[in-house]
């Protein structure tokens, strides 16, 4: 099964389709997508786990697939890879209908699915050799070199001779990623790739994904960790209870989530600050949680400014009072420095001031609901 022509086609840097395949020429509409699903649905008995989702993963993107636990991410991935059959809907991976073209598509797809799975009694290296020899399309002559390269890329070279039984969760995870990298791929699917990794490992995985993307590989990453997706993805889709609630380029999605900037003010003079902010057109600021004054050393520097300000007399007792965090949405038309100046002019003791663009987390929570309850 080491047909040189097929091999050459797969390593073709342009990522050209297998010429031997008698496939109709992909339409211009689908050519841009590494994964495209239409009304993809999966039912187990009476419960619908994946409910008519239309995924569109552009080629060359790093696509973040977000959703709380139990929202149907892994089931979707299993359907994409032909492990589970869809109850309804269509899947196209690398411009080919699935699962009809499994044998043609999967050699170009690397995957880490719901955690690594290895034989505990074999070494990491032996496990990779075994999985690679199971792949009928992978060349046996280059196996040694490819396995070593994959191990090196995930930083496992020194531990490759150890039995997988002795591996930590993070090492197994790395080995799972190495397995996905064994041959040149057009698409890599990583399901929760940073599970069990230490912060350093997480960072390495991020770097790895970026380097894969730089090579032109499409990377499809599922995660419930937003910060991670935010840091490395160009596109995002958000799942909730089996439905796709948002999808698109990360920047577009951020913009669609909240058009306003979020303003946070920490001050012990909450009532005055609320009045000032309202006057400036910053929407009525809801009272946040109380925080104990955390930086007493800063106060002497603030005091003179307060003393010189012409404002309402300030009760010295309030000086020891706790700061209150006020939150508000800052319209694009109001510059942040105007707000600070106005607050100070009104004698508000500003102990903290921050303007943030809405994070993906806000959007995520907005879309999927808060709390730990798994949506049924």
């Amino acid at each position, binding site marked *: 099964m080491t047909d040189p022509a097929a091999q050459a086609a797969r390593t073709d840097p342009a990522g050209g389709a297998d010429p031997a395949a008698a496939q109709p020429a992909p339409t211009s509409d689908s050519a841009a997508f590494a994964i495209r699903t239409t009304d993809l649905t999966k039912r187990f008995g009476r419960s619908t786990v994946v409910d008519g989702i239309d995924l569109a993963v552009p080629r060359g993107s790093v696509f973040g697939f977000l959703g709380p636990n139990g929202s149907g991410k892994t089931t979707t991935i299993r359907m994409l890879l*032909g492990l*589970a*059959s869809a109850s309804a809907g269509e899947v196209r991976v690398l411009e080919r209908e699935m699962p009809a073209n499994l044998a043609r598509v999967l050699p170009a797809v690397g995957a880490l699915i719901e955690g690594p799975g*290895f034989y505990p009694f074999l070494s990491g290296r032996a496990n990779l050799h075994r*999985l690679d020899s199971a792949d009928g399309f992978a060349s046996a002559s280059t196996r040694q070199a490819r396995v070593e390269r994959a191990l090196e890329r995930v930083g496992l070279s020194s531990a490759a001779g150890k039995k997988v039984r002795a591996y930590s969760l993070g090492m197994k995870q790395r080995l799972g990623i190495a397995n996905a990298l064994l041959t040149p791929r057009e698409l890599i699917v990583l399901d929760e790739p940073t599970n069990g990794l230490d912060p350093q490992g997480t960072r390495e995985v991020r770097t790895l994904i970026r380097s894969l993307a730089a090579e032109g590989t499409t990377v499809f990453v599922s995660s419930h960790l937003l910060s991670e997706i935010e840091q490395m993805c160009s596109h995002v889709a958000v799942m909730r209870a089996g439905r796709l609630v948002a999808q698109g380029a990360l920047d577009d999605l951020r913009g669609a989530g909240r058009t306003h900037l979020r303003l946070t003010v920490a001050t012990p003079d909450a009532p005055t600050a609320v009045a000032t902010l309202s006057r400036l057109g910053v929407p009525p600021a809801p009272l946040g949680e109380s925080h104990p004054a955390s930086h007493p050393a800063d106060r002497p520097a603030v005091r003179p400014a307060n003393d010189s300000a012409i404002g309402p007399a300030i009760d010295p007792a309030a000086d020891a009072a706790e700061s209150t965090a006020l939150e508000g949405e800052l319209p694009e038309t109001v510059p942040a420095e105007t707000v600070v100046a106005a607050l100070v002019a009104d004698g508000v003791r500003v102990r903290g001031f921050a303007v943030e663009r809405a994070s993906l987390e806000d959007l995520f929570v907005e879309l999927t609901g808060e709390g730990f309850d798994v949506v049924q």
Partner: protein
Amino acid sequence: MLLALAAVPVLIAVAIRLTDDGQGGGGGPAFLDRITQNGLFVGVTALVVAIPLFLPLTVGVVAGDSVAGEAGTGTLRYLLVSPVGRIRLLVVKFAAAAVFCLAATLTVSVAGILIGLALFPVGPVALVSGDTVSVGESLLRSLLIALYITLGLLGLAAIGLFISTLTDAPVGAMAATVVVSIVAQVVGQLSQLEWLHPWLFTYHWLDFADLLRQPIEWSSFGANAVLQLAYVAVFGALAYGRFATKDILS
């Protein structure tokens, strides 16, 4: 597991050697008393002892583990996305189980012959039909018997493979396969169910005595082969039907 199987003839031979009172003859199962006269019989005797339980047990473990074991360690999904075709996976798994059947019977047979050579006198072998064959010829007959029993185990291996596609718990599949083989043997003992007996995959298990006749009586070999191939076909098809469309959620 092969070591445990090899221990069967060794145990038998040592036990008989130690209790041999020098008079020859005596009770015990068929063949058992003849070991003292000819060490070559240890292999056959050990197979007779191993057929009802030890061999089905090991085959059940191997066949039951074949697919469910991969599911249990989480490697099944990685094999399938490598990609390995589902049919190919089943064929390879069955081939591996068949190779194990052969290895298991040969292990018992060879270990028996070796321990027999070591502990008992060896000479030309008297067959069931009364003829006598040379040592070389008798070794050939031993190999034939091993092949016969291997063939007999293929049906069980196919059943084990099918059961293995039903579950993600390898232990359950192993146990179920062994239970099936025991139930088949128990049913084979009930005269009330005699009409069923020729359909049991265990029916021909102990009929290899025909290979110890001169000339060799091939009819039971053929009947065994047909029966086992039928089992392989039926349970192979069931395993395929189950596995080809199964959602791999392990």
